[in-house]
């Protein structure tokens, strides 16, 4: 349990230091209806950046994070 508690505090500390907000209801609604798609210039890049930053705060040790960074040409 200590490890889980420390993990929770780590997530909190990183989120306070660099808040990442993934929530975007209007965009989610537009993607759900098909009104907006990944063909829209810049949308995929923005979603990728958000996903990397959010995960770096929440679960920085997730093994696929490094793979996604390199596949998407992201710097740390």
């Amino acid at each position, binding site marked *: *349990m*200590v490890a889980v508690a420390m993990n929770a505090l780590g997530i909190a500390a990183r989120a306070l*230091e660099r808040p990442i907000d993934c*929530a975007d209801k209007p965009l989610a609604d537009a993607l759900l209806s098909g009104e907006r798609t990944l063909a829209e210039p810049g949308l995929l890049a923005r979603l990728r950046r958000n996903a990397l930053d*959010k995960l770096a*705060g929440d679960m920085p040790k997730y093994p696929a994070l490094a793979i996604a960074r390199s596949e998407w040409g992201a710097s740390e």
Partner: protein
Amino acid sequence: MLATAPHDARMGSEFATLLSRVMDRAIGTSALSALTRLSGGASMESWAFQWAGEGFVLRRAPSADYVADRPYDHAAEAALVSAAHHAGVRAPEVVAVLAAGDGLGSGYVMRRVAGDANPATILAAPPPTLLTEIAEALAQIHALPADKIPAAIPVMDVAAALADLKARFADYGGDRPVIALAIKWCEDHLPPPADPSVLVHGDYRMGNLLVDDGRLTAVLDWELAHRGDFHEDLAYGCMTVWRFGRPDLPAFGLGSLEAFFAAYRAAGGRAIDPARFRFWLVYRTLWWAMGCLGMGAAWRSGADRSLERVVVARRTAEQELDLLLLLGDEAPEAERLRPLPLPQPPALSIQGEPSAAELVTAVREWPVTSNPARRGATNSWSRSR
């Protein structure tokens, strides 16, 4: 299976007495020993113990509430595990099903199978034939004759299940764009209904596969079993998250999809449709993203106030990353190759009084031994679920 906590004193000797009565009936008179809590959350428990010189495992839900939101009860689950075992599938042998008069809640007792299900241990030095054995065992599950599957095991209606995920997404705020994208993709790629006579294990992945001395010894955790599209089982263990430390090896963190599919076919497995495989890879990744979000909701509602729930809820981002890795492939090339925007800089300066982040960091660095609340705590989180 890992022992994670000693015999819980709260249970006292009454629990042992009641369990002994069940074992008297099932196996014959002996004495109970080495009763040890294995794992489980608030609603489900696993216990290991010795009886008549052999090891057994009890899976039980102390409260009747467990059955309320489940498609079938423990008797049906036990009947399925039994049917699979007797058909030659590497499922545990069920020796007793708890009855109402046993006073232990609902559940069943299995003969304990030797082995370790810990993905980290297995994937650190994977046995060379393990992927083949995993494919063979899966082909056997999918070959279980329809008349051997207990009637209570339901057929999965995929369109209805997807609609349910969509409704839950709305309940949780409906504001995560990547999850919305995945729901839309699944709606657009929903495969036609599959042969409803095929048994699907539903949780076939590293963590639920017991390995001993280089061999697959048992397939565990049958509680999500249903009838439906067998591609679901092929895809589930190939999800990025269930490859654990080996995301570079697409099949169970053990090898290539080609090798996995070839072994499945060689074992008499069914004909694989790549489009269905991809659908289930996306669907079950979406499903687990919703599962993670749901844990946050369960904690908030008070249904399960455990620390694990809150932390697992923050694993939603893992599934969003994996969904983007899957679905990004379908974007136009110009979008796939577009450089990413720069990351957000840290928000706070490092001057003046300590920030909230620094306070939290200070608590993290506080020595565990000087914190009475933490003393004596043990790690009980061995299997993600």
